[in-house]
């Protein structure tokens, strides 16, 4: 099992959707939220996803397809 940490940003049109519940039902991953700030216009969540690495990869892919911005916890690492 692997644990990876992510920073996820939810656009306004996704804020009201129970997406984290959805991924825990759809994929064999355990989301563990540590920090979050959600308003009616946008929101971000910092969490750990625990599961097999390929399953975490599929979860991230799915979230991106749903319009969620998924970055590592460190956000942008690639600098100029």
């Amino acid at each position, binding site marked *: 099992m692997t644990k990876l940490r992510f920073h996820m940003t939810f656009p306004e049109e996704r804020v009201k959707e129970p997406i984290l519940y959805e991924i825990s039902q759809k994929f064999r991953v355990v989301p563990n939220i540590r*920090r979050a700030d959600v308003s009616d216009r946008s929101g971000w969540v*910092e969490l750990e996803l625990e599961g097999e690495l390929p399953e975490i990869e599929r979860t991230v892919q799915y979230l991106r397809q749903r319009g969620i911005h998924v970055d590592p916890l460190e956000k*942008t*690492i690639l*600098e100029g």
Partner: protein
Amino acid sequence: MSNPSASPRPFPEGQKFPSLMRGLKCRECGRIYDLDPVHVCDFCFGPLEVDYDYEAIGKVMSRATVAQGPNSLWRYKHLLPIAGEPTIGLHAGMTPLIRAERLGEVLGLKNLFIKNDTVNHPTLSFKDRVVSVAINRARELGFRTVACASTGNLANSVSAHAASAGMECYVFIPHDLEAGKVLGNLIYRPTVVSVRGNYDDVNRLCSEIGGEYPWAFVNINIRPYYAEGSKTMAFETAEQLGWKIPDQVVVPIASGSLLTKIWKGFQEFAQLGLVESHPGLRVNGAQAQGCSPVYQAFAAGRTQFVPVKPKTIAKSLAIGNPADGYYALDVIGKSRGQVEAASDPEIVAGMVLLAETEGIFAETAGGVTVACLKKLAEKGAIRPDELTVAYITGNGLKTMEALTGYLPEPVGIDPTLASFQKIVKPS
């Protein structure tokens, strides 16, 4: 290429907790951690920052001790996160602070200064500050391998410092990076890893590698130490102004770390009594319009920003989801500063203006700073008499391609005096 390796080496007895650093502290929940290569609070995932013992520092640091120090950023070593004496990057910092009379005249600013990091050592950008600190700390922590993910200045600086330290070095880049930028790193003989994927993929991979290998990844596990090097921009500014905090500063925003650390540097100097405190200091941010998450949040009056996909010629500022964006917005708000953004043509115009008035050839990030400085001056956010410092963070020789098509062609003449006089018409 050899296998990744490191030998975590304990500090010599008595040096585990160097006296001037108390530990790492979570910026969110305040939990304290040992001075290890960690960057995130295990509990709340907040970023960690070095926690100093200012009382102890105040006993050993004064204007006199600084003046007796080396002509480099190491003259402020008591406020930098290393336990012993620096051994690498000994010439970084102490770049010129230039009174910019001609640029000031154009902008209507009578008291304008340029902090010129285009001539930083060894790789001509402000990254030499953060990297020299990071590499020294990495060595103290026992690392033999250093790494970064970068398309430009950071990679140059990490590769150069690693070479001079004799450390193994890995640089991660996107596979479609321009050949010229790759060559600029290869000269230092790091292992350059070209990742088949987009910027997001490189990011993800580096985060995973950062957790997998015992390497000093400068802007991941060493980040709390690395970021502290940026404070020296403020320390030098204050000292070069005659131990004074300016009224206004204009700072380019990429990750947002430089801006927050310049603020912190001035606060530390004031706390130690090295300068008079200046509650009126305004910290202003400068972004490229093509990558302006902090500007957009500021303009909308939000305290949170939305990540963006960068599309700008200012590649060194192209950070779509800045790690310290929230904290940069906080500093700008607290100091009643502002954020401006510059379009690509405005960036080039800024580069040209700086070059033709002050003789400084800055990279695109410098164009962003000058363009935003101009906007702030034009709208009266900076008043003509205010003591203002603009931070120029990298050398123009690194981003020559950005100028293609923007500058006039040379005047062509035949090799005769007549041709010269007829076509050039010298005054």
